[in-house]
């Protein structure tokens, strides 16, 4: 049944080459843990992506209950965690996954560094990777404020002061993030929410696309 459906579409749109191009490629022996167990270090990048997907999915579901308004943000997080079925699990996935992404990126970076995979011709992919790291840190920073508890508030106060210490443009960065010269409040929360769920994920997906296209184009770096 499914096969017939596939054939029906394939006959009209010729989709086989498309998914072949995406999915069908060689995995060299030196990066395959089935051949050398120590090759599991080559999985860190894929694992980072896997957790990122979990973050995107769990985040999408969290916004079904979350309200980015200072009167209701904390209440809505409390509600979705304690009153909604599996709320603790879904928020837990997003909460722990957030830290895990950073850990996995770090391990992935170490592997790329120690195998020398950043060298010519892969310098551009290293640069995109560093940008991805920055985007993930931005997501961590903006997401931290959203529960709107005391820890979130004061961590963001300190974080915004750090941003404000940038020479020349620091005060403007602070103002653009906080939405007000002195208050860290209603406008800060909505801005952080917008940055966290729209702006940075958009940048993340674009950079991830570039990261993957470059890997496919250049292939996996050779054995040590």
């Amino acid at each position: 049944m499914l096969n017939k459906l596939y054939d029906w579409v394939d006959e009209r749109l010729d989709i086989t080459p498309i998914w072949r191009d995406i999915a069908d490629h060689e995995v060299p022996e030196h990066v395959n843990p089935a051949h050398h167990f120590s090759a599991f270090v080559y999985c860190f990048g894929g694992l980072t992506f896997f957790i990122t997907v979990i973050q995107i999915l769990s985040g999408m579901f969290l916004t079904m209950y979350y309200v980015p308004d200072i009167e209701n943000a904390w209440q809505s997080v409390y509600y979705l965690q304690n009153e909604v079925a599996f709320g603790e699990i879904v928020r837990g996935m997003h909460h722990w996954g957030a830290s895990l992404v950073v850990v996995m990126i770090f391990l992935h970076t170490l592997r790329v560094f120690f195998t020398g995979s950043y060298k010519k011709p892969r310098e551009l992919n290293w640069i995109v990777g560093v940008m991805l790291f920055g985007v993930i840190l931005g997501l961590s920073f903006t997401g931290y404020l959203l529960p709107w508890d005391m820890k979130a508030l004061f961590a963001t106060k300190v974080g915004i002061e750090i941003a404000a210490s940038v020479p020349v443009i620091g005060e403007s960065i602070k103002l653009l993030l906080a939405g007000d010269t002195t208050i860290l409040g209603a406008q800060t929360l909505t801005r952080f929410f917008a940055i966290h769920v729209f702006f940075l994920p958009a940048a993340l997906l674009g950079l991830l696309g570039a990261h993957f296209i470059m890997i496919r184009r250049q292939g996996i770096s050779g054995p040590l």
Partner: protein
Amino acid sequence: MSNNRVSRRQFLGYTLTGVGGFMAAGMLMPMVRFAVDPVLQEAGAGDFIMTDQRADEITEEPVRVDFSFEQVDAWYTSEVTNSAWVYRDGDTLVALSPVCKHLGCTVNWAGDEEHPNQFFCPCHAGRYEKNGQNVAGTPPLGPLDEYAVEVRDGIVAIGPVRDNTLV
């Protein structure tokens, strides 16, 4: 006019680029202006706020004076209480902001037992002299901000915050 004739292809290319540029700008301009609005909004002039502190009770020892005001944060209006460290310096009163110039924590007078005549920030052990001058070798890079301060009917009133004028 140069002698190079513009070909049809070039002309169409220029035209399309121009029209496309206008359309992109027309789309982006409102969004960018929308996003940077807080940067361009004019700050309202601060009023003086009455406290509960009698001016003649202020000594040369800084005391914490709280003051409450209605804070308008976009669509959210609330009663906010801030504080200032107030002390007497000859005939005048001095009111210093308690916000640490390192990363924005709250400083205390004599918060560190080893430095009883200084302001102390518990977060990263930043210290300030009584006039707000940051102590060299501690994290803050500038002196504590200063509030304008007035005495009205014998009561301390706190005004807008400004850069420290004492150091």
